[in-house]
């Protein structure tokens, strides 16, 4: 069972029911659950969307798109049925926040899905979990069955005239399916390759109908926004970044864990105070701020607020808020190799720059790390990565290229140390680092 952590600076909104047995429907209701859905039935679509806009809630999957605005793009009238699709494919290395939400508070995801459905006029929602999360899928399935039994799902939910169905679905192993158009392909029973955009899912989505796709954390946050009121929720965070974020801290820290902190909370404090500092009394070499695809930050660059805009200004991204801390005994070439090995494995092959780029980057970095690189290789790695950027249907190509560019730019010296047949000064896993 994943360990829960706590820190005095935490503001527990999304995590407030964690560890309180809220996976049981009666307990969830006792703790205030499903009151937001009832309120939304009374208030109606326009009010919900205005509240979401005013809350400054932004997509927790990584892109940070304003949720209320996304919902407002769905056309009011549609010949085809509309859908809500909850993205719980959580596969970005460094990210394990949705894992805890599914485990401790599955009904918040159901309630958020209902509210999204009311907002856009959908009668069906899908909750998609990555295939590895089977035990969490079972928790989710029980929660959905309980909600049906209570009349919170199905015909005339909560005694209203609204109908709403939820289908839970398992994936079967694919990072790529976390991209929204690939996710729809997977739900439709196909290979998870991306679709070209436009049209955007809000207009032509699942089964050709208008579809809102939100990350599981975003959806779980929605009932809390309604409960607190948009203004109170927005006030917790920083400018244009409402509320809190579940920061999954991992790597070389004393107290790894998922901490719920206000948007804009200082990254240096996350590393040194909340997570207890670098482990074993070692020094800090680097921090990945938001999952493996976000460019690396140096120790002198982490005195920043963790919201979408401030991390962007610092040259990286808030992403999935998976903070990966790296100590001073780590080989960054090896780290880069392990990162690109992942993207090479997950590239679906649909777009050639991503398929070929990830493959050649992995080959180059493998050779380089083994001590067979040349000075020209460093620029070649950079050149390959630069030529993937912006040249693929979905963001996986960028997600693979961005971190590599960051490693080469900020740790060029470490790359140079591997030249001239020098064995890696840190590495232990040369022969293994191939999946």
């Amino acid at each position, binding site marked *: 069972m*994943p*360990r829960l952590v706590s820190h005095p600076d935490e503001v527990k909104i999304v995590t407030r029911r964690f560890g309180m047995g809220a996976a049981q429907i009666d307990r969830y209701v006792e703790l205030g659950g499903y009151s937001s859905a009832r309120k939304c039935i009374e208030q109606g679509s326009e009010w919900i969307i205005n509240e979401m806009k005013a809350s400054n809630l932004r997509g927790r999957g990584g892109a940070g798109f304003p949720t209320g605005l996304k919902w407002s793009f769905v056309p009011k009238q549609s010949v085809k*049925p509309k859908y809500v699709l909850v993205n719980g494919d*959580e*596969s*970005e*290395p*460094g*990210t*394990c926040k*949705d*894992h805890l939400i599914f485990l401790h508070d599955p009904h918040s995801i159901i309630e958020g899905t209902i509210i999204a459905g009311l907002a856009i006029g959908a009668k*069906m929602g899908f909750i998609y979990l990555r*295939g*590895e*999360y*089977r*035990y969490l899928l079972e928790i989710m399935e029980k929660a959905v069955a309980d909600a049906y039994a209570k009349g919170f799902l199905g015909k005339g939910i909560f005694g209203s005239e609204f109908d709403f169905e939820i*289908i839970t*679905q*398992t*994936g*079967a*192993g*694919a*990072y790529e399916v976390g991209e929204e158009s690939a996710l729809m392909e*997977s*739900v*439709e*029973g196909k*290979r*998870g*390759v991306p679709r070209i955009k436009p049209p955007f899912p809000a207009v032509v989505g699942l*089964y050709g109908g208008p579809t809102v796709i939100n990350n599981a954390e975003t959806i779980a946050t929605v009932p809390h926004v309604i409960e607190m009121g948009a203004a109170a929720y927005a006030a917790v965070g920083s400018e244009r970044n409402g509320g809190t974020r579940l920061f*999954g*801290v*991992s*790597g*070389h820290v004393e107290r*790894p*864990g*998922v901490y719920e902190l206000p948007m804009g909370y200082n990254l240096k404090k996350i590393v040194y105070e909340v997570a207890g500092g670098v482990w074993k009394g070692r020094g800090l070499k680097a921090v*990945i701020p938001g999952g*493996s695809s976000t460019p690396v930050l140096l120790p002198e660059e982490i005195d920043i607020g963790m919201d979408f805009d401030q991390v962007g200004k610092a040259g990286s991204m808030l992403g999935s808020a*998976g903070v*990966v801390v*790296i*100590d001073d005994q*780590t080989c960054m070439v090896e*780290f880069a190799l*392990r*990162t690109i090995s*992942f993207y090479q*494995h*997950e590239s*679906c092959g649909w777009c050639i720059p991503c398929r070929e780029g990830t493959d050649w980057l992995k080959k180059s970095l493998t050779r380089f790390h083994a001590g067979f690189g040349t000075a020209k290789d460093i620029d070649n790695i950079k050149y390959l990565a630069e030529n993937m950027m912006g040249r693929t249907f979905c963001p996986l190509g960028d997600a693979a290229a961005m971190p590599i560019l960051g490693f080469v730019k900020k740790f060029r010296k470490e790359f140079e140390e591997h030249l001239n047949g020098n064995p890696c000064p840190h590495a*232990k896993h040369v022969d*293994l*680092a191939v*999946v």
Partner: protein
Amino acid sequence: MSLETMSVFSPQLSARFDALTAKYPVKRSALVPMLLYAQDEVGYLSDAVIGEVAARIGITELDVRNVASYYSMLRFKPAGKFNVQVCTNISCMLRGGYEIFESFREELGIGHKGVTADGVFSLEEVECIGACSWAPAIQVNYDFHDELKPELVAGIVAGYKGKAEAKPEAEDLHA
């Protein structure tokens, strides 16, 4: 062809598939879950499994294979009864994921994608399994084991070995 008499699946799984294909707006949406559930029961996607899934959904076997080959959890060869999946992605790597993989390799005497001679265990190095803050982590079938240390590996293997010996014919091993 009568699916009732020819089915490679248990009556329970057949009933589950009927329910799955009925609940989606489009039948084909059940394909990916069906393949994974079929694999859980049969052990892998055999020709018979692919044939029956194709027939139940009403698409070609080629189409099923085309989809199945995309998903990393789906396999076309049997794995061990207990498939040990060791994450070595960044968060696990930083906290000793490769050492955990090494320990399993030594304990089981097999490498990446290997299966033990008695068919009880298989070993796989896998990508991120979403347990980064509790690294290093592994999954044995669907069970998570987190915050591991190399010295815990022998105990984990012994635990599953005991399960395999206690219930050699159990159908529930993948649950």
